[in-house]
């Protein structure tokens, strides 16, 4: 329960400018909290990649340890952990999320893949 899954996560968050660890996928979120983050990212027209922790028990535990964060979803922007559903929602409402995306030079346009 350490290296292999951590390496996978490191690669994913390095490769995808916006990476969301969630339950289900962008088309079919399987949890209300995951669905809310998908909605926010879609609303902001941010392309993002997702990983479904329900399909991978090792990832589900691994991401919690990696981020030192006990819940799913978890959002990473440019390799940096932004937070879970509460923080993302709060940052969206205050406009901070949009500022962060701009500051980090995250490309915008099309909806989720």
């Amino acid at each position, binding site marked *: 329960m350490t290296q292999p899954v951590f390496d996978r996560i490191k690669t994913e968050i390095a490769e995808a400018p916006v990476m969301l660890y969630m339950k289900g996928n962008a088309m079919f979120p399987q949890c209300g909290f995951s669905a809310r983050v998908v909605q926010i990212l879609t609303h902001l027209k941010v392309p993002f990649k997702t990983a479904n922790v329900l399909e991978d028990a090792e990832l589900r535990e691994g991401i*919690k340890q990696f981020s*030192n*964060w*006990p*819940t799913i979803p978890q959002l990473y922007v440019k390799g940096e*952990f*932004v*937070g*879970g559903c*509460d*923080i993302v929602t*709060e*940052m969206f409402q205050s406009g901070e999320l949009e500022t962060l995306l701009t500051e980090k030079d995250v490309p915008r346009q099309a909806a989720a893949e």
Partner: protein
Amino acid sequence: MAMVAGEIEALIRAALPDASVTIEDLAGDGDHYAATVVSEQFRGLSRVRQHQIVYTALRGRMGGELHALALQTSVPE
């Protein structure tokens, strides 16, 4: 397994004695809570760090027996 609001509050207060803690039972089912925690100890910390402090205070219950705790943290005005 659900937790009662008082337990959640006690755990948070044990870790952050100065905190003002408000727990709301959202669904009345002892399973979906919203917590607002205001503490001087959060000053200067990112939201992620603030939430991590609260999660640490809950000693592993978050994500387990406590499956839905909406958390809001801030510093005193």
